């Protein structure tokens, strides 16, 4: 039997959705293909591992950001939280005699727990201010951006926290079966978030609270609680990212993470999540983060001059999203 009109309609719809869903993936693949031709090293295992590692910190931040943006919010504070969680946790894991925490170094697990805790607390404050005091998230988290940076500098006295223990640095420097720890952690965060967003009740509520907060509330969703939690998630992940960064660079820097929020938001938006909430996927964010990292890596590999790099990077990313849009429109 030839397809009925309604069947063929569904099929077209499917194609359209497929295009929309994976349009940016096409752009990513395209950029990769170009780079593979332009530079012989691009496709080496080693470089691909590098790219993944270079994606991981922004990727983790971007995943937290995805939760926030899905609820129509934005979290500008992640960069500062990276630094704060970094120095606080590092201060428990440094062998330097100048340490501000007496009795150290403490076991890495303990230090790491504290770092996540710092992130969670920052997120909690953001969340309370946004959800219960109805301050626009832009303002609330901009305040945190400033305050957390100030606290970082105060806590560390403006100096880096150096000489981290090897066990602490494990999360930044070691590998499991050839996969660097930051990548492993990123993968964990990614799959956990994917599961939460697609399969759990909380995930449904995130989409609902972002898609139509009033209707969600009428349906019994505790929208304020959802809003609170997404900032906690973003804060906690920023804390984790901060420690991975400290572990990678070998010391926790007070200037770490400056302007990281922009790249994180960019990954989310490139990945197709709408800033007006309710629509988006963590898979898209992954692709977005990879795209940014690949572009950076490729331009470095080809030895493109600094000035041109910035111009080209800007154009490439816009072009990728343009391609994505054109595809989804046509489909």
């Amino acid at each position: 039997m030839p397809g009925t009109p309604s069947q063929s309609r569904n099929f077209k719809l499917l194609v359209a959705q497929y295009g929309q869903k994976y349009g940016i993936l096409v752009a990513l693949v395209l950029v990769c293909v170009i780079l593979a031709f332009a530079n012989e090293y691009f496709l080496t295992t080693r470089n691909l591992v590098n790219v993944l590692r270079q994606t991981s910190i922004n990727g983790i931040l971007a995943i937290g950001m995805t939760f926030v943006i899905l609820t129509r919010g934005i979290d500008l504070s992640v960069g500062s939280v990276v630094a704060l969680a970094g120095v606080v946790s590092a201060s428990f894991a440094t062998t330097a005699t100048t340490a501000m925490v007496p009795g150290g170094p403490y076991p890495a697990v303990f230090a790491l727990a504290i770092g996540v805790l710092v992130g969670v607390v920052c997120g909690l404050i953001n969340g309370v201010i946004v959800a219960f005091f109805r301050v626009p998230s832009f303002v609330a988290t901009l305040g945190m951006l400033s305050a957390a940076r100030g606290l970082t500098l105060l806590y560390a006295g403006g100096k880096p926290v150096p000489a981290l223990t090897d066990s602490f640095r494990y999360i930044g420097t070691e590998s499991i079966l050839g996969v660097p720890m930051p990548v492993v952690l990123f993968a964990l965060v990614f799959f956990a978030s994917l599961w939460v967003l697609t399969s759990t009740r909380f995930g449904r509520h995130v989409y609902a609270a972002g898609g139509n907060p009033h209707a969600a509330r009428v349906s019994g969703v505790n929208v304020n609680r959802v809003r609170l939690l997404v900032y906690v998630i973003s804060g906690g992940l920023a804390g984790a990212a901060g420690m991975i960064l400290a572990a990678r660079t070998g010391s926790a820097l007070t200037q770490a993470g400056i302007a990281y929020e922009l790249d994180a938001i960019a990954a989310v938006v490139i990945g197709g999540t709408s800033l007006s909430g309710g629509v988006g996927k963590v898979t898209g964010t992954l692709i977005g983060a990879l795209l940014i990292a690949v572009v950076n890596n490729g331009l470095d590999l080809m030895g493109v001059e600094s000035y041109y790099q910035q111009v080209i990077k800007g154009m490439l990313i816009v072009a990728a999203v343009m391609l994505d849009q054109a595809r989804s429109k046509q489909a």
Partner: protein
Amino acid sequence: MAEALLQVRGLKKHFGGVAALSNGQFCLMPGSVHALCGGNGAGKSTFLTIVMGIQDRDAGIILRNGREVVFAKPSDAHAAGISIIEQELGPIPAMTVAENIFLGREPLARFGRVDFASMNRRAQELLDSLEFGISARTVMMDLTVAEMQLVEIAKALSHDAEVIIMDEPTSALGGAEASRLFAAIGRLKAAGKGIIYVSHRLSEIFQIADSYTVFRDGEFVGEGAIADVSREALIQMIVGRPLTEEFVKENTPGDEVALSVRHLNALDWVKDISFDAHRGEILVLYGLMGSGRSEVFERLWGLSEDRGGEVRLFGQPTNIRKPAQAIAQGLAFVTEDRKETGLVLTSDVRANLCLAHLDQLRLGPVMLKRREAAASQRMIDAFSIKTPSDRLEVSGLSGGNQQKVVLGRWFMTDPKVLMLDEPTRGVDVGAKREIYRIMSEFAKAGGAVVMISSEADEVLGMADRVVVLRDGRISGVLERAELSAESLLHLAA
């Protein structure tokens, strides 16, 4: 006598100094359909949202099964066995129908995972039992307004509540869908549930309700059994004065063709649409939901791409590519979805009223504020729009008054041809009559009206001629003399 499921007394609510509700009173008995009637802005939705715990109240008491209750949030009301279909639809666009229906009560499988399989199955069973013909897995944003409304209904019924509030559930529905809803309401009634039913379509109320309560200007004015009241008497209670006739029709079609459409195609499924609308004529496009009527209008308005066909205005061929051209040529278009395509909810009443007429209210680039104010006041008066000030955000108006703002916008442009897509959706009887009068006067003065309507009463009362569409094609044309509910349905279905 059985205990009331819900009893409300002395409910009060004001918004920034404006009383929306000054004495809300209501009593719902089990196994009954109780109509809540009142003009636009009478406070019905305010009343119902307070009962549901969506808004808080200034004063008043609510008794549920005789016990006083205070709902801080809607989920409290759900827990007490009350559910609601809100007047303004609340779809979560990116989620599926099943997810929308089970939002907040998703069935869980192991490890806290949502049990999608059972959710989809149960949602589909529900939809099928209601004969709504919607797939539970469709994403909400791919549905039409009417289908969303049906999902909303299914959702309210899925709560298995004892009290079900329906705030204008049929305003976006056609006859066939509405009768499915009525069947469902009948089953609920038989099961001893109580239904609060709001609608401005009085025929529906006389068809399904057992009792009525009327609010006027935020005050309770009366209640009783439907069996004891006549349509005229009910209208008088709602409007506050006797209304001699519901339809005003004084126009007579002329000979000159105002809008001529030939072999028009729209999208890829509306084909070969041809009709003429004459000066002085009210031409109705009738059809079932999804028959393609709105698509014809959108094509005429330059919102969808040219798929062939010829359009003439007063004999002159036109090629309208974008709305501004249509407006410039004297067309006006009241869209069916006032929230999506009609109002700028964040702007005030004046801005909304003047939006399509800005070019006539300016001097060079500068707006003439006095003329804007005067023009907007003119429309507020003409349509008796109930608002404390025309600087109030239009989102603060009651649903019916919002609809009047959309109408006012287009009448302000002084059009030659009016395209109205379900123009009286959610409008109260009094105001409907006003709108009919204005339409009729407009036609009488030599304008042409093309109206889409799903309300058979309205079509029978107002149409000079009816073009019936079915599945994107014209299935027949009926002159006024041939009009009857049966003949319409015969061509449409």
